[in-house]
């Protein structure tokens, strides 16, 4: 019995030794929101400064708070590192253009953020001020000794985290603009790939080789593209008379051409992407010899052109009336609307004839 009780004591001792008294983890928030050091409390305390963007004043006040803390003996490394980091921050904020901020806060912030880093208080892998001479690890905080060691460790974490959250609050509008920029870029690409003129693999490859077309800027898809050997279905219409239109399916090959894109509003891609282009085409039908021509397209569905054929085997292609050629999608649309248009046309010609009589 005695022996087993001894074993329990030994195991208990080792269990206690194995678990650090303090065990903080990344982003731990060891005190409560009602604590005067809490980020939430600072929103009320510094309401005026936050409204007028006087972050320099806020960080100066936080530095004074830390300096006046009675928890620390003032030569402790973690403590001096925290004060040094705050001093660095305040030094940077001395360059914040408060006069400009009073007139245009956005511009003042952007000027500051472009010239000065603000990531000093980001915690990384249980380390503050990572990689810098003032680096403080959570292991160091857990190993603090003496009176109220845990309170001091928590005090450090809490003050550092509060400063980080304040800095993040300051960057909110820039962050939102950055993320909106990314969303806009993603939408531009999505529209380009879904709504733009389709490319076969060889066309995408060739366009990738052209340094003037290659999409080097991730924010914008290409503003133009080559069309090369692009087959598509089309419908050829005889051009003798509107009343006696004959349609015949053909296979068009866009031999070479170019498409140009433009945005209704570059900064707001949701307003739409338009494109237009022109291509030299070859046309193939099962009942006639191949023809050649030219085709223009506007957007996805509107495409039309003319094709010349040597339909009489005379060797003179361009002496004969050309065929109109339209894309299959446009033809399907026209086919759907054609009866109504034909009726309108007949009514109109009847009226004209009646009038002439």
């Amino acid at each position: 019995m005695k022996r087993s009780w001894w074993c329990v004591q030994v195991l208990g001792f080792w269990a206690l030794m194995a678990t650090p008294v303090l065990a903080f983890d990344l982003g731990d928030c060891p005190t409560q929101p009602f604590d005067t050091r809490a980020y939430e409390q600072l929103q009320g305390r510094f309401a005026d400064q936050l409204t007028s963007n006087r972050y320099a004043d806020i960080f100066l006040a936080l530095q004074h708070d830390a300096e006046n803390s009675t928890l620390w003996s003032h030569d402790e490394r973690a403590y001096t590192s925290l004060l040094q980091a705050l001093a660095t921050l305040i030094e940077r904020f001395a360059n914040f253009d408060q006069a400009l901020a009073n007139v245009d806060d956005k511009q003042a912030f952007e000027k500051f953020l472009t010239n000065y880093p603000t990531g000093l208080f980001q915690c990384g892998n249980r380390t503050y001020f990572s990689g810098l001479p003032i680096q403080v690890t959570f292991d160091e905080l857990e190993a603090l000794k003496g009176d109220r060691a845990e309170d001091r460790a928590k005090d450090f974490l809490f003050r550092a985290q509060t400063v980080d959250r304040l800095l993040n609050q300051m960057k909110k509008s820039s962050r939102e603009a950055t993320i909106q920029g990314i969303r806009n870029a993603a939408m531009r690409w999505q529209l380009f790939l879904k709504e733009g003129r389709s490319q076969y693999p060889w066309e995408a490859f060739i366009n990738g080789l052209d340094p003037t077309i290659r999409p080097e800027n991730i924010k914008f898809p290409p503003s133009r593209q080559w069309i090369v050997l692009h087959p598509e279905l089309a419908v050829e219409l005889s051009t003798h008379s509107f009343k006696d239109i004959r349609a015949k399916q053909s296979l068009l090959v866009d031999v070479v051409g170019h498409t140009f894109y433009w945005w209704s509003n570059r900064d707001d891609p949701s307003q739409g992407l338009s494109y237009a282009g022109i291509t030299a085409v070859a046309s193939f039908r099962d009942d006639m010899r191949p023809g050649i021509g030219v085709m223009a397209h506007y957007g996805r569905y509107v495409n039309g052109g003319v094709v010349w054929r040597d339909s009489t085997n005379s060797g003179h292609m361009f002496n004969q009336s050309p065929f109109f050629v339209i894309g299959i999608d446009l033809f399907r649309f026209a086919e759907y609307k054609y009866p109504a248009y034909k009726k309108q046309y007949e009514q109109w010609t009847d009226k004209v004839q009646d009038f002439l009589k």
Partner: protein
Amino acid sequence: MGKHLLFFIHGIGIHEPSWGEELNGPIETLKTVSQQYAYFQQAGQDRFANVECISVHYDEVFRDTIAKWQSDASSITAFDPTGVFKDGLGWLATASDNDFWWSHLADLAMYRCFPLYRQAVRISVIKQLADAIERAYKADESAYCSVVAHSMGTAVAHDCLHLLGTSHWADGPYANVLAPSHWRFQNIFMVANTSRLLQTQDAEMKPAYDSIVKPGPLEDPKSYCFAYWNFRHEADPVPFPRRFEPIGWTNYQNEVVRHCYEYNVHNLSHYLLHPRVHIPILNKVVAHLAVSDQEKIKAVDAFPQFGGDVEFIQKAKDMAAQLHTLTGEMADDLSSLDWIKKLLKFHQIMETAR
């Protein structure tokens, strides 16, 4: 504290939007292997409660493109009045994900050789990262993010992180506050790293060793994470040529594993089975020392190279020997074409072993 966001970025092959959460997928595997450690065995405690696993998905860029090619080509071959194009476009008209070329190698070819689709993949991934980061900031005024990327996904992750941290994104005079001088990732875990192999000459990009995707001190504009982990399998030919072996990086750890618990040793979940791979992820993302040093030593020591039933182990040993021969033939400066040939050979060895 806000949740630690853990982005999973997939490699080549078919991936659904929720690929990470699939049965035997990386998230489930990570949770399953964690159960062998005391910290995760406490009843009623969801140790992953503070981790938000996000499956980043870009396969749809490839799938939509191939589907469009297939649809365009089949409309031509079906209605071609001359019959001339039936043979010429037949290969495209019959493109299907059932074919290893279209489901796997085409992803690689499209990312490496087509700037158009490469950029489309990148912006799709960057947007998913940015959306999640923004969500974290809205919830907690802070964002703790780490990345687990696999195979071609390591190259995608590399490119996307570099662009996220170096481009000027806002459509106005706003600074990029997701740049490394303002914010950085916590840990980057690269599994079967191809970021050096697939690096490009794109104007906005930099080679893998020169980009910002490396660990470094806080606010350093030339580094974008606190720690970088590189995992490679000895018999996996994918990360072999132009191997990722940086010199002089601090907070960088390279782990080489050689286990064989399934035929596809390249699979992300297979990598995660190894304690050398999953313990750093658990300790850095779930909780500090979630797996103690003692447990780690024990787990690595007790993890046999081959696992499974006797029949599988025998086949796996033969397969591993063949894969070692295959990787032994691969030079560091292997040409892209030879590399693809080796990948096909790798696929063939795996399929034969099955």
